[in-house]
């Protein structure tokens, strides 16, 4: 098993390197002078030269390639001299130290921006994933079990609609339904923000009387405090947890609908295939209860492709977060991506892209490893 994991890890190294190189390159060819963005009105040739020297932007981008007046120029004679001294190697060294660079626009380390905004996105993504998995698998199982019934056809129609409706359309439709049409009903839901206006609450360190705490433990607690539902439950501020949860319902459903539909379809077709196998007939023939056959013999063997699509859907969730957070006004990673793209803050874009891609690679790795647990044949081959 360990050998299997190590082999998978080694395979992801070239991919990771490619990701870093690609994001680096994309960020360097983005139009717009970072100096102008950062210094704004104070930008002049002298201050820009100083700025570029300080951030190492005057060096070769990659060996032999320079950026001059926003254009990339190839200078082959400089190639040997810049082989090791260029922006890319500098960037690799920086990454190795766990430094994603400083946001040019708001002069903060990108890692800090990430830490501040990440909890919102993680919270949103987890609820979306919970919705997608529970609803998707339930629908898929029900529809495979009663195949070709009205419930089956209906479920598959919902699933087809679910994969087709754009995240932003669904989000806006739901916001309209729950915040306008059902405004004064008990099931009205807030269409934007993370908490109701004027809601006051204590962070975890405050609630636990740990305000003196500093260093990594404090960072971790602050990070958790920023996930309001977690904070609310851990510190016993249940009104906080409830309010935050109410604000997350619509965004999570909007974000989770596409994966929900994909999971439902995959569960159904995978389960149908398994239910047609001989050992299922054997299990039925020896008189096992139908439910036992369905879950223990059927579902367990049908899980492999379902786990795959769950893993693959994480990438979709990260993209969808950009749209969902924009619509519902949640200040997470998605909104940062959008803001830094419009604001040409390429250090942030770069950092986000690398982080997102690494998350994606790790998730795929976890999925592959979970195959090993679900199906011993994968591990042995």
């Amino acid at each position, binding site marked *: 098993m360990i050998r299997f994991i190590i082999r998978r890890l080694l395979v992801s190294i070239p991919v990771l390197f490619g990701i870093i190189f690609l*994001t680096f390159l994309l960020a360097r060819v983005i139009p717009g002078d970072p100096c102008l963005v950062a210094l704004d009105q104070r930008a002049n040739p002298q201050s820009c030269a100083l700025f570029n020297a300080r951030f190492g932007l005057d060096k070769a981008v990659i060996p032999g390639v320079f950026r001059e007046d926003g254009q990339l120029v190839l200078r082959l004679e400089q190639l040997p001299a810049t082989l090791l001294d260029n922006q890319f190697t500098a960037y690799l060294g920086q990454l190795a130290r766990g430094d994603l660079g400083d946001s040019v626009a708001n002069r903060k380390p990108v890692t800090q921006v990430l830490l501040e905004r990440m909890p919102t996105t993680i919270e949103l993504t987890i609820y979306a994933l919970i919705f997608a998995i529970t609803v998707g698998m339930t629908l898929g199982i029900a529809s495979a079990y009663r195949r070709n019934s009205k419930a089956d056809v209906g479920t598959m129609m919902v699933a087809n609609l679910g*994969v087709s409706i754009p995240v932003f359309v669904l989000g*806006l439709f739901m916001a309209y339904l729950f*915040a306008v049409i059902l405004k004064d009903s008990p099931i009205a839901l807030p269409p934007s923000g993370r908490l109701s206006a004027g809601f006051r609450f204590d962070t975890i360190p405050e609630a636990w009387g740990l305000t003196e705490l500093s260093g990594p433990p404090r960072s971790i607690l602050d990070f958790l405090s920023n996930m309001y539902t977690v904070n609310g439950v851990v510190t016993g501020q249940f009104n906080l947890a409830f309010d935050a949860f109410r604000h997350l319902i619509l965004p999570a459903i909007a974000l989770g609908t596409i994966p929900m539909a994909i999971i439902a*379809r995959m569960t159904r*077709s995978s389960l149908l295939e398994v239910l047609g196998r001989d050992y299922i007939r054997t299990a039925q023939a020896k008189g096992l209860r139908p439910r036992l056959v369905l879950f223990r013999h059927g579902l367990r063997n049908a899980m492999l492709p379902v786990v795959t699509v769950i893993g693959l859907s994480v990438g979709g969730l990260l993209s969808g977060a950009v749209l969902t957070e924009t619509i519902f006004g949640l200040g997470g990673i998605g909104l940062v991506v959008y803001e830094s*793209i419009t604001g040409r803050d390429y250090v942030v874009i770069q950092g986000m892209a690398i982080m997102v891609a690494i998350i994606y690679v790790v998730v795929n790795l976890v999925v592959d490893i979970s195959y090993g647990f679900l199906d011993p044949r994968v591990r042995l081959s």
Partner: protein
Amino acid sequence: MTSNPGGAESSLRPVVAANAVAVGTSTTGARRASLRRILSQRSAVIGLVIIGFLFTIAIGADFIATHPPNDTMLRVEEGARPRQAPCIHILGCPADQPQHLLGLDGNARDVFSRIVHGSRTSLVIGFVTVAAAIVIGTLIGAVAGFLSNRTDGLLMRSMDVLLAFPALLLALVIVTVLKPTLFNAMIAVAIVSIPIYARVMRASVLSVREQDYVTAARALGDSSFNILRRRVMPNAITPLIVTGTLGIGTAVLEVAALSFLGLAAQPPLAEWGTMIGNERNQLFSAPWLIIAPGVMLTLTVLGFNLLGDGLRDALDPRLSR
């Protein structure tokens, strides 16, 4: 998938069909048979109907639209105001008011006409983007499948790198690099979908490369290009069509998302994503401005998804899961 229960009986027929395709004998009889199989798929038929409807309004847009899609009604019609609610005469709207089936948008343009013309934009986006991705993707896939292990490894690893990014995010970054226009957004979406077609093509090449009939063709002195055209393409065409049809839906979806964020189609072009993006803050005061393009966008994607699913079930049981 919807109507194929996966039982032994129903999976028999497509297997035979797949063999027919594999040998590459697309005689009239075989073609008619596969057409019949496609039409026996409920989802394919519904998808075809939706797409046919979209094509009809796209082609007849100039006749169906009641107003010029990009013209403001301010100063043209008396009493026209931005974001005026829909006014349909037979549904009780006073006859002295000018009729606007879906109301006016923020610039007092007729929403119905913009919706109708938007179908053109979306269909062009879908087909052109996917066609570009298929051409480049199959080329890369064919080269990777035919050439040495090292080239293959290099090409497919770079495809892996592209796949390692969530598609929309990568497209977002590429559009920023290229400047936000509709054309650049289409390029970006095409780039991020190249790996899918490259993989399909490479798989097709690998599956026939060691077959006897390919060895025979090689022994007879056929060039790689000829083998590709005569032996590989007939095998690859079915999965490519299926993946491509599903890809059109995805492409429409992704370009619309970029437009929604203001990174693709720019006003005044009638594009559904842009229409939603421009008016999204009016959700509470003028919801029809969002509902109409939202429904059309969903319908378009649904149509191509249903057709793609139906084609897959009808033509290629190996792809259906």
